[in-house]
């Protein structure tokens, strides 16, 4: 899928290149399946069937039933629908939300906003290794807790959270508490466990589908009050005429991703080990990702050159990494801050994220440019 061997794209947690097979499937659907899936005539029935097939593929890759899948415009929309939708009907009996301290802004900000509207919000920060103390988080759940929200894999460090244990512990303390999981970075990188999980959001552009499509899993029988109202599509959860071509693309990407998951994880582990070994040779570098994080993401600090400067330097050499999350647009990382990292660690952090297309040459090019940059650039 890569276009240019000289281009070292190592920021796959920000977005991925669209798989040509996905693009072809979308192209076919855009040109061939144009009818509104909700209409009643022949071509519309075909559109409906096409959408249903895409939904099945996505459901299979998440591990649920097709009727539990709602197509969304992406991870942010999924998180907002799940959070706002869960809280609204539970307001009558509770006013507490428990959330991890390193959520993506699309979960963190709606919850903080609810905090300003009178909800008691408890944020549980991770330890220095980026992992959450599940027991501490579950202990914060009480009779009035309406929602617990947690990321399955952190977007900046790749730290995995023990969602299965967390969800079980939450339900043990209060069976009415809704559990929402942001699985945008976890999907097709680690197996998802849906037991005791009420809702879970995923996004297409992290798995080689285009931007603008995602899915929200809502456990059958689980009730939310959707924040948007409209024509009743997607069971009324996400109204608006369905983005059928992109849903088709998401289906293809999900199917292909699920098939390749094991091999691609193993490949990422090789690259991750190579990068860690290379970084160990560079004095002053510390790793911010936990040892058992997903191999696709590696976050480290070089303690010498500001992240933005190093990023610009690498960019001039066609090596693309990020200084944290692309969604923070250059602001200091709130995840590393929540982990208690010191300012210099945060200011000099870089995140490398792999996909199956990356090669050892990419890693070597990054290591060489990094060494060169550290020698040439002004240290802070």
């Amino acid at each position, binding site marked *: 899928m890569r276009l240019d061997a000289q281009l070292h794209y190592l920021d796959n947690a920000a977005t991925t290149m669209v798989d040509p097979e996905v693009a072809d499937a979308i192209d076919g659907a855009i040109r061939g399946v144009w009818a509104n899936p909700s209409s009643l005539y022949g071509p519309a029935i075909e559109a409906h069937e096409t959408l249903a097939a895409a939904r099945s593929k996505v459901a299979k890759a998440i591990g649920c039933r097709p009727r539990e899948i709602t197509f969304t415009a992406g991870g942010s929309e999924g998180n907002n629908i799940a959070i706002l939708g869960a809280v609204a009907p539970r307001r009558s009996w509770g006013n507490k939300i428990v959330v991890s301290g390193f959520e993506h802004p699309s979960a963190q900000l709606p919850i903080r906003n609810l905090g300003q509207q009178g909800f008691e919000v408890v944020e549980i920060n991770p330890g220095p290794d980026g992992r959450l103390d599940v027991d501490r988080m579950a202990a914060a759940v009480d009779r009035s807790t309406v929602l617990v929200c947690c990321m399955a894999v952190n977007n900046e460090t790749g730290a995995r959270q023990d969602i299965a244990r967390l969800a079980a512990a939450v339900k043990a303390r209060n069976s009415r508490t809704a559990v929402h999981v942001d699985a945008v970075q976890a999907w097709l990188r680690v197996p998802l466990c849906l037991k005791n999980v009420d809702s879970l959001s995923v996004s297409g552009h992290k798995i080689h589908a285009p931007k603008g499509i995602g899915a929200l899993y809502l456990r059958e029988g689980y009730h939310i009050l959707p924040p948007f109202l409209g024509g009743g599509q997607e069971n009324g959860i996400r109204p608006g005429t369905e983005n059928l071509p992109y849903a088709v693309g998401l289906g293809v990407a999900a199917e292909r991703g699920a098939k390749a998951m094991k091999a691609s994880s193993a490949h990422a582990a090789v690259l991750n080990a190579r990068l860690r070994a290379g970084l160990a040779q560079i004095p002053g570098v510390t790793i911010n990702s936990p040892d058992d994080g997903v191999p696709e993401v590696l976050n480290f600090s070089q303690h010498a050159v500001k992240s*933005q400067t190093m990023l610009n330097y690498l960019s*001039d050499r066609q090596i693309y990494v990020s200084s944290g999350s692309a969604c923070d647009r*250059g602001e200091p990382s709130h995840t590393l801050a929540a982990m208690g990292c010191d300012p210099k660690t945060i200011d000099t952090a870089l995140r490398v994220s792999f996909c199956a297309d990356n090669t050892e040459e990419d890693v070597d090019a990054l290591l060489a440019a990094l060494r060169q940059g550290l020698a040439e650039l*002004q240290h802070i």
Partner: protein
Amino acid sequence: MKEIILAYQGEMTLKGLNRSKFEARLAKSIRYRLENLGKFKVSSSQSTVYIQPLEEDLDMEEAARRVSKVFGIVKLSRAACCDKDFDTICQTAEAYLGQTLRGIRTFKVEAKRADKQYPMKSPDICRELGAFLLSKHPHLRVNVHEPELEIMVEIREHGAYIHGPKTPGAGGLPVGTSGRALNLLSGGIDSPVAAWCMARRGLALHHIHFASPPYTSPRAKLKVRALARELSEYTGNCTLFVVPYTKPQEYIRDNAPDVLFTVLMRRSMLRIAAMVARKCELEALITGESLAQVASQTMAALVCTDAAQSLPVLRPCIGMDKNEIVALSRRIGTFETSIEPYEDCCTIFTPPHPKTRPSLDEIEAAEAGMPGLAELEQAAAENVERIPIHIGDDPEF
């Protein structure tokens, strides 16, 4: 109904024999701003600019918005124009302002008679038109002291005008009547405000920005381009000069005392800006400095900066508090872009404890220890990138 825009000239009415030059410049600016909206006739008479549409269905709302950003105009109003026959005036007033009158409780009619041949005198016009409108809107009361709406009727030679409410204009003097200058645009909050303040005093200006890749990001440059575009509604078309500043900046860092770095860098930037300004025949430099805001803006530091080159340095923000600068920045619409978090060259390599009272002697001694700097500055000035900025370019970045 035919509608026109009346734009009232501000302090330029106080000018003497050269007033016509200011008026011509103002009319030119207005014509240019309205050019792609359709055909308008722009003419001046008695301290007022008449902006008359020459085609049907022109977007008067947008025209008024654009005119409100042209410097030289202190207030503007839209007005319906009609024949001078009094019945027609009454009917037009009702048609033009009836809806507004339904939503308020008090009003007043003012009349002005430029055409002294008109059979009714001003007080008669006020009384008669007021009575007519009261008969149409019995809920209304006349309040001559604090009316919610003051209706102005003007009887001029070629017709009558019935004005809607007056809205504020941008004030100042027409851009281009006070000379030409080069504004140092860093990407922060202050420098766009400085540019706006000086353009309001009639300066035509261009911008200069210092980029130090890889320490500064390409996004910082896009941000500055967006700021220049946002300002262009006020300043008019201009050029953004981008100086490749990495080498001089690294040279200063490597060859000068740490504590003097910022002042030495400011001096170096002003020298380069002066070279570019002279080449483009610009007469002054503009900065967003505010006294004592940071270490390089103390009185002692400004003395050192001023001595670096001989063009006058205009600092309109010098006596403003940060709060005032921020408020102005919000008003002119540059604040949201200014706070985007991309580092500019003013904040890199800065020492933790810069000297707040540098003396010119020690600064000149430090520069004597940097014999290669002049050549690097010359090269930077010569390799400047020119980005044309046009009014109406999308400021999104």
